[in-house]
């Protein structure tokens, strides 16, 4: 059976998370103790402390991997190979549906010093991951034990702004936020972000509800690099987005179900994640994806070891194992997002089946250098900036 096609026909990876997102959040708040909550802000550990920690850890022969749904081939072949190669038995759990919800559920437990029961977790760079780092909920990694990462990680995936020197995280998969459009309704080639602000698409434009996603595009539209943006830039971007909204150009701010709307023609063009679009293309739907010339967003799902994990050494070994190009190629063939591992494109191009070749040729999976030059990460926000930033853009998306 053609897995990617089947998944493309069913639903995108993100919209499936919908069903579970509502369950978590009552638990999050209720676990808060009354009478204030102690801050847990933690300073980065000294290199010697990190070395001391790792020197006391040893391989236990077990590892528990918590990941998102649809983020591992169904036969779990990469993990099986890991087990064969190392003798470490694994447990794989698809328990993460959404960053905010996962953070909300884990935060009280981690604050209380209880282990989550996972040795590896996967979180997108963004507010929640930033909080995990700031609150000291992640274990600093021992890069001496990550030779494959050192050797094979793409240059853009090393030393990211949100985690200097990959102290706590290494990328698992990445994705690009650009513009998806339905060629049945849009008869021009979209190249500019200004198309999202074009009056002629009134009521047919989808934007994302997430403050980071929508904020980035607002900044691209006013010619600001999000990475270097100031509060004044945010205000300018917000004004641009507010105008877009008030003119009735935006139909809806989507949490995650935008791709169905594009495919059905409810919106003609929308902010979109590359992997979702690629799956639709494989399913034969008239959806195109473009990184606008003004810029697109790159986001990264990262592996990390939560504080208190029982098998950190085994976790490190698995994380590093996934940086072997042939293993990473298996992941990419199934997941179809952007891989942070060098050499995957060549491996896929060398395969005999059509799907692999199509993947190797897709700029959605393997952005070109020119694409990378246009891509910007989410703005990393300080504690003081976060409410200001969120407030500005949520006022627009939650009017």
């Amino acid at each position: 059976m053609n897995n990617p096609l089947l998944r493309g026909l069913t639903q995108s990876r993100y919209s499936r998370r919908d069903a579970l997102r509502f369950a978590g959040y009552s638990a999050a708040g209720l676990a808060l103790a009354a009478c204030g909550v102690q801050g847990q802000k933690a300073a980065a550990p000294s290199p010697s402390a990190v070395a001391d920690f790792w020197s006391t850890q040893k391989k236990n022969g077990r590892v528990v991997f918590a990941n998102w749904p649809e983020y591992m081939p169904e036969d779990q072949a990469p993990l099986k190979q890991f087990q064969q190669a190392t003798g470490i038995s694994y447990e794989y759990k698809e328990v993460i549906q959404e960053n905010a919800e996962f953070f909300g559920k884990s935060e009280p437990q981690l604050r209380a010093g209880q282990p989550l029961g996972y040795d590896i977790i996967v979180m997108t760079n963004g507010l929640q991951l930033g909080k995990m780092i700031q609150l000291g909920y992640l274990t600093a990694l021992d890069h001496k034990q990550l030779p494959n990462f050192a050797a094979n990680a793409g240059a853009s995936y090393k030393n990211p702004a949100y985690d200097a020197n990959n102290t706590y995280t290494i990328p698992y998969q990445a994705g690009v936020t650009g513009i998806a459009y339905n060629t049945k309704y849009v008869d021009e080639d979209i190249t500019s972000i200004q198309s999202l602000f074009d009056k002629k698409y009134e009521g047919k434009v989808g934007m994302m509800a997430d403050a980071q996603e929508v904020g980035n595009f607002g900044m691209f539209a006013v010619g600001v690099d999000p990475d270097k943006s100031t509060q004044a830039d945010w205000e300018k971007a917000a004004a641009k987005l507010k105008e877009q909204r008030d003119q009735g150009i935006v139909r809806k701010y989507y949490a995650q179900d935008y791709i169905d709307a594009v495919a059905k023609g409810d919106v003609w063009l929308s902010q979109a994640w590359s992997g979702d679009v690629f799956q639709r293309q494989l399913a034969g739907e008239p959806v195109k994806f473009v990184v606008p010339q003004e810029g697109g967003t790159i986001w990264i799902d990262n592996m990390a070891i939560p504080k208190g994990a029982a098998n950190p050494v085994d976790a490190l070994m698995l994380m590093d194992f996934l940086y072997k190009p042939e293993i990473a190629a298996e992941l990419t063939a199934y997941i179809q997002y952007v891989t942070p591992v060098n050499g995957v494109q060549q491996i896929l191009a060398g395969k005999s089946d059509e799907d692999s070749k199509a993947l190797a040729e897709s700029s959605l999976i393997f952005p070109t250098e020119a694409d990378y030059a246009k891509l910007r990460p989410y703005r990393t926000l300080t504690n003081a900036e976060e409410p200001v930033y969120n407030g500005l853009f949520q006022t627009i998306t939650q009017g």
Partner: protein
Amino acid sequence: MRRWTPYWLALPAWLWLAIFLVVPIAAMASVSLTTGNLIDGFTQTFSVSNYSDAIAKYSTQLVRSLVYGGVATVIMLVLGYPVAYWIAFKAGHRKSMFLFLLLLPFFVSFVLRTISWGFLLADDGILLGTLKGWGVLPQDFHVLATTVAVIGGLVYNFLPFMILPIYVALERVDPRVIEASYDLYASRLSTFRRVVLPLSLPGVFAGVLMTFVPATADPINAQVLGGTSNTMIGNIVQTEYLVNNDYPTASAISFTLMAVLLIGIFIYARALGTENVLEAAAR
């Protein structure tokens, strides 16, 4: 010894309520009076500014939620009462089948049902696409991403909770009382107005409570079916809690909503003469 038995038997229920209702509410009340952020911690300041800030910032969404919830409730009442009446008095021995049909959608999850609504009502979907093809509707007509869609979704999702209690109340009306009314020169209309309707009021009361409260607080319909200006207070709570981790603001909004709903219910109960209603219901 034995006279204590009822107390012992009731104990688990009381503990349940205490642990899962009172404690969280108390904790939430406490959190709503703190200031700070997740990273630096929240301190108990007993400052009510969380409330005034939240109300100032989100009054639009709060009022909108109450309006949507109210309008949806009125529509549900208007649609649901005749259905309940029909099942109670006209469905004969097929009653249980119709009740089952009514509950059938509930075997599918709330979110999925709402999403399937989105599918059904797509701009060029089976419904609108067909009508547009016939030229009945203009090409740019759409239902999704409008107030109508959100309220329609609320009505659809909560309608059975309106119908069931009204049905139960109507079912309990002694048919001889209705005959007595006919016998005493009342027309069908006047029998309905003077006898059936008043006797079903406990059901209407329960139905309104069971729909207005969750409809007002619901985030899903607005999120899935709404557009740019349909955000409801439930969505705000969700964002404040999950995205912003601003627990004090989220708690303050929740409490504000709770207070507004309780006051609304109280006024409504007074207007309807709860004492009688509840007495009649207890009969």
